[in-house]
């Protein structure tokens, strides 16, 4: 169905070829997964299938790409539109119309399908993707998972033979991701659609793949084969495969079910060992932030702004952040209701829950971007939304979902200098953090040219320059490969050990299992679970990490714990 013959892609100004000498054949009706570390050209390879590379992105493509016999050299993307459906990483930039139903119909309208056919397919697709209740909604008001489903639906309606997806589940909560994957599997099984997708969250998708294409490093030839064979040599692998390699299972299991069947022996070996209990938080308490050099203006004093914040001395409260019976309303929507949360120094808390459950709102309240409607929020003894931003950065730092928002300057060095002056830190302190988190990035790199993981590290360094005792991260692992994720875990563990309290909002159950002391699950703006990671996570089918599922009823959370228990070197 898709053939790559000696394909190389070279972008203007890039040092080397992004892809070189790729020979690849994707047979009809297969679900093929494209894996590899960040920056190896996965998106470029996907773009070449739909013709967007090079017709739209520029660059030079040599060799030949044919889809169902049509050469992308002679066919523009629009002439492949009836054959290839493409969904990029960001669903928002995919939408052309403004309501769900129109969006589903847009592709068919362009192709000139008959009105009754269009109507039937829109209704079918609404049902297939569970969007029937949202059909009249403006797309801008949908949650991330809903938008992702609309984006997939919008390319499904013309019934393309090939579907190309770039990270379709990275932004979704576990349940929504499973829904999307179930739909994809149904398309492959029932309609014979060929699916080619790239995804970093292998633990979610590898079991559905018929074949896996591995791009081991930039410019290297791809390796294609059965998932179990390719996983055996892949530098990126999900926990189930890592556990399989550790236990020496042959062939490697790809799904929790396969692994459980072989896990009896491992469970026996592990039986005498008790899973490590997370050590109580005995981190050194960070010194309280120095009083702000900024003097409040006469007007502010007159109006009494910030007066209440000053009343509460920081030393009385030993918690870094204390949220009590917090309620937030936005228009008619109650985003949060009666949420109570305390974060102690050195503690790592994972906030989980489906898209739109209020995780980001809670983080925004903690930094003072959102004013609570009811209840109290105290961070470092201050009320965030009444405290000057300059003062607040010393108490709490947030790395937003899109780390790029935090970066304005056009070089890494300028960004660091700005961060130092913002935080009132000694010159060079941000650059030192960058070198620690992100070794080998030259000063004159533009933040836009960094990879997803590098940008996150830079934003993290910028936020950490002010040494805030409370660090908040919103969806930090979106778009990160396993190596970048492992580095992030290391960094955050170090910070927690230094006494930073960390709150992460995440859909990534594996990350929560590795990092968090406590997990808080939000649903519809309310806290539905708050407890030690092990207690909350192991019992939940949606939030349990793969290791826990395989080794249940024993309560192991991560491969690292199992490795330590078996006494193997890591």
């Amino acid at each position, binding site marked *: 169905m898709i053939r790559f013959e000696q394909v190389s892609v070279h972008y203007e100004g890039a040092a080397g070829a992004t892809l070189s000498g790729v020979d690849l054949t994707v047979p009809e009706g297969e679900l093929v997964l494209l894996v590899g570390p960040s920056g190896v050209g996965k998106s470029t390879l996907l773009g070449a299938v739909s013709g*967007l590379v090079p*017709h*739209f*992105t520029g660059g030079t493509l040599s060799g030949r790409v044919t889809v169902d016999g049509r050469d992308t050299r002679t066919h523009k*993307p*629009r*002439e492949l*539109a*009836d054959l*290839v459906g*493409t969904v*990029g990483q960001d669903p928002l*930039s*995919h*939408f*052309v*119309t*403004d309501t769900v*139903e*129109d969006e589903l*119909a*847009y*592709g*068919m*309208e*362009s*192709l*000139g399908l*008959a*009105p009754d056919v*269009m*109507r039937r397919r*829109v209704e079918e697709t609404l049902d297939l993707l569970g969007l*029937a*209740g949202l*059909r*009249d909604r*403006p797309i801008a008001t949908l949650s991330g998972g809903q938008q992702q489903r609309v984006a997939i639906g*919008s*390319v499904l309606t*013309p019934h393309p033979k090939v579907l190309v997806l770039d990270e379709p589940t990275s932004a979704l909560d576990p349940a929504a991701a499973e829904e999307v994957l179930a739909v994809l599997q149904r398309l492959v099984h029932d309609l014979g659609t060929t699916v080619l997708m790239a995804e970093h969250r292998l633990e979610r998708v590898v079991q559905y793949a018929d074949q896996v294409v591995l791009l081991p490093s930039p410019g290297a030839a791809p390796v294609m084969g059965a998932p179990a064979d390719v996983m055996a040599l892949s530098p990126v692998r999900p926990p189930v495969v890592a556990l399989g390699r550790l236990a020496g299972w042959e062939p490697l299991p790809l799904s929790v079910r396969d692994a459980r069947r072989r896990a009896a022996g491992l469970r026996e070996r592990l039986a005498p060992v008790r899973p490590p209990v997370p050590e109580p938080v005995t981190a050194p308490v960070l010194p309280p932030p120095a009083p702000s050099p900024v003097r409040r203006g006469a007007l502010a004093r007159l109006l009494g702004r910030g007066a209440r914040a000053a009343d509460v001395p920081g030393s009385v409260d030993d918690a870094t952040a204390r949220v009590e019976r917090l309620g937030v309303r936005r228009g008619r929507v109650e985003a949060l209701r009666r949420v109570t949360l305390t974060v102690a120094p050195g503690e790592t808390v994972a906030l989980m829950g489906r898209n739109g459950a209020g995780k980001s709102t809670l983080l925004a309240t903690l*930094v*003072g*971007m959102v004013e609570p409607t009811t209840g109290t929020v105290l961070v470092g003894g201050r009320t965030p939304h009444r405290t000057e*931003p*300059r003062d*607040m*950065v010393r108490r709490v730092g*947030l790395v*937003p979902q*899109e780390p790029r*928002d*935090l970066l*304005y300057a056009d070089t890494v060095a300028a960004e660091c200098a*700005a*961060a130092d002056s913002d*935080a009132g830190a000694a010159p060079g302190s941000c650059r030192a953090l960058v070198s620690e988190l992100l070794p080998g990035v030259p000063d004159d790199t533009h933040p836009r040219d960094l990879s997803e993981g590098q940008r996150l590290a830079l934003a993290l360094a*910028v*936020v950490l320059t*002010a040494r805030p005792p409370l660090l908040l991260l919103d969806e930090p692992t979106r778009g990160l490969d396993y190596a970048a994720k492992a580095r992030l875990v290391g960094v955050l563990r170090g910070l927690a050990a230094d006494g930073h309290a960390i709150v992460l909002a995440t859909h990534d159950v594996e990350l929560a299992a590795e990092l968090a002391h406590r997990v808080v699950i939000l649903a519809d703006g309310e806290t539905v679970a708050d407890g030690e990671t092990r207690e909350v996570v192991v019992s939940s089918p949606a939030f349990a990490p793969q290791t826990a599922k395989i080794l249940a009823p024993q309560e192991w959370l991560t491969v690292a714990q199992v490795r330590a228990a078996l006494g193997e070197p890591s």
Partner: protein
Amino acid sequence: MTAPTGSAVLARSRPLRAPEANRSNALPAGAWWLWALGLATAASRTTNPLLLGLLVGVAGYVVAARRTDVPWARSYGTFIRIGLFVVGVRLVFSVFLGSPIPGTHTVFTLPEVPMPDWAKGVRVGGRVTAEQLLFALYDGAKLATLLICVGAANSFANPARLLKSLPGALYEAGVAVVVAMTFAPNMVADVMRLRTARRLRGRPTRGVKAVLQIGLPVLEGALERSVAVAASMDARGYGRTAQVPPAVRHTTNVLTLGGLLGVCAGTYGLLAAQGAVYGLPLLLAGLVAATAGLRLGGARSVRTRYRPDRWGARAWLVAGSGAAVAVAMIWAGSVDEAALHPGVVPLAAPVLPLWPAAAVLIGLLPAVVAPVPPSAGAPRSKEIQ
């Protein structure tokens, strides 16, 4: 009348009551725009502040009764603010630059800037009369009412929805325009996001410096998004065309361009107070030529239309009510010019002319016949499968 009888009457007349709005019975965007343009035409024919106020009230009532919860439905308020601004600007100009209106009631006198001989016609400062202010006020109110009518149309029918009624030949250009228009709201969203990000960096979010510093990233972001949307549109078949012979293509161009020029000239004739005589025929001839051109042009496009809005009885009533208001006002203007243009010299209190005022009330019809939007609080009724 007792309550049970009342509800019995309602129950019997149920088929005539406006249904709850959904996709199938949605009024075409064109109907709303015709209604609003009818009101606007009426407004352009009068300077009577009472009639203008009545027009604003009618538009406002219909908006309040029938608008939905979608983001663009809030434009009515925005346009009212713009209208007030226009009135203000008109007054300020009148005060500072004077006015050709002769007047005897001096309100106050500004110091006059002496002008050289060659600029004799121009006056800056000087005497400000009540007549002149009143004239400016009426004139400004007329413009403001026009704008508010457009705002009302906007709050019912997103301009993007007008595309659905565009002929196939124009659709692609229309999509390009709409995508370009989403540039502005997206940029506003970007500004909000970057301002919160500034707060996260501990910088003040207000002030000139803040605006300058986020300007560049905002532009960059908007540009990137435009490129991404263009890529997505291309990949989804935007701009696929069928082959047509060159002769057809040229005829199409001539007919379309000529027709559109005719439409423009005709509309101008109708809206301007003079020239209604040649306005209508020119408009009609232009419309015919343009329609023929667009029909021909449609052959080049392979597009089909998904669930186009249908012109049903309710759509005709809505559009017709606007047209009726416009026609009535034009007719009233030819019968009793003075009632629609209350005297400024000498000063006189405006009088509400009965029949034109009654005619304006026809514009309330959509508040009864248009489908009722589902109330925000109530659970949405089951969709038609």
